[in-house]
């Protein structure tokens, strides 16, 4: 009788899955890049004085926070070609990864705008005033005083958002992107849907190790960057 559960499948599937981590990393990397840029703009809108810009930025964050990634993913996947079609542009040949990156950039931007805003607000206003008072120009003050401090505050939250992004990225297989999740689905399909459990376990192990590694990396980074941090001594 054939066994229901066979550990060898876990071991065998690992080398097949690992090469596709590249795609997962590519999606995550590009999304982080674009998401952080958009996040900066949104955070600037939230911090700035314009009331309308503030409303738009907060509205954007609320809406994106309330949307499951899978819904957003399909909305961009079906929606953008439809909109482009209305303007007579055919983008049906565009690679799927583009839609995935757009989706997760939008989502990451919402998270990042909050991360950037809170870290900016955590820096005492006196720091900026002190910097300007000793003769630094405002842009110098931002670059040399505010940014390094805000960066340290933002780091743990940035790490969390990155982990979240990577996990949500697993959903990209639903529109047919072959990342490690997509490859796992292909392997299961090739096995006639048997031994799915083992493949998923292998996948879970990969993701688990990956997130522990990222977590540790960010802990290290935090330690490195906070060496200049001055802790206020209470006397």
């Amino acid at each position, binding site marked *: 009788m054939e066994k229901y559960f066979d550990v060898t499948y876990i071991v065998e599937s690992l080398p097949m899955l690992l090469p596709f981590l590249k795609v997962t990393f590519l999606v995550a990397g590009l999304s982080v890049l674009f998401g952080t840029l958009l996040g900066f703009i949104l955070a600037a809108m939230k911090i700035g004085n314009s009331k309308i810009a503030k409303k738009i930025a907060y509205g954007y964050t609320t809406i994106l926070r309330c*949307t499951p990634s899978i819904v957003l993913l399909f*909305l961009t996947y079906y*929606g953008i070609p439809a909109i482009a079609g*209305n303007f007579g542009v055919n983008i049906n040949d565009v690679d799927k990864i583009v839609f995935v990156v757009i989706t997760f950039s939008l989502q990451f931007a919402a998270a990042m705008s909050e991360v950037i805003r809170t870290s900016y607000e955590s820096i005492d206003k006196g720091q900026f005033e002190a910097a300007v008072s000793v003769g630094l120009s405002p842009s110098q003050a931002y670059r040399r005083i505010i940014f390094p401090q805000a960066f340290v505050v933002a780091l743990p939250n940035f790490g969390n958002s990155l982990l979240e992004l990577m996990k949500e990225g697993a959903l990209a297989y639903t529109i047919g992107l072959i990342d490690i999740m997509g490859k796992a689905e292909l392997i299961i399909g090739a096995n006639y849907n048997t031994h799915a459990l083992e493949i998923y376990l292998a996948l879970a192990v990969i993701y688990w190790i990956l997130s522990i590694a990222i977590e540790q990396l960010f802990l290290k980074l935090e330690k490195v960057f906070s060496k200049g941090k001055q802790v206020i001594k209470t006397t």
Partner: protein
Amino acid sequence: MSEGLNYQFLVDTFFVALSGVPIALIITIVSLLIALPLGFLLALTRINRIPVLNRFAQIYVSFVRGTPVIIQIFIIYSSVPLLLASIFEKYNINMNVYDVNPIWYAFIVFSLNTTAILIEVFRSALSTVSKGQLEAAYSVGLTNVQAFRRIIIPQTLVVALPNICTATVNLIKATSLGYAMSLQEITLRAKVAANVGYNYVEAYIDIFLVYLILCSLVEYLFKLYEKRLRRYKAVNV
């Protein structure tokens, strides 16, 4: 593709999607009811460093937070039926595994998932309540249960509530993945409706709107509750 939106379909499907809301809510509420006490207890084991349970909770949290929900769903959905089948076989229970309503698997997955998140939430919230509070409660003669019910839990809840709100919203969002278990919730219903005429854009706009309304509502309710609980908040001098 360029004939624009099908508004009739948009309106019709909105109500189809809306009809999936009860299932999403049932899953959310049941998962929370299981996860809240369990998360709290495991958080206590983490704080009090109870030998085995502490370690177990740590690994459990790390696993759940380190893997995508969709993989957790697939693992439960493909492993629990195997277990059930062998149990049924052993005790001669005449029941087909495939007749089990997928909602039971959803309960398992989402309560396991939420428990892990709530352990962390409660752990950080409990650590904000100073130990003196518990000692003071003992010193005026309260029992352990009384001390927790009247002194510790209210204070913990105030701190934990925003994070519980986030966890709830995330849980509602995660139920959209129930389609992987062929669960008849918001996403699947609208998607099936869209399959007839390839009206995917409209269907997803509807799903999007339903989740937006649902989550905004939940956030609003939590805000109200937070306001009520604020009277327990310790005043910092």
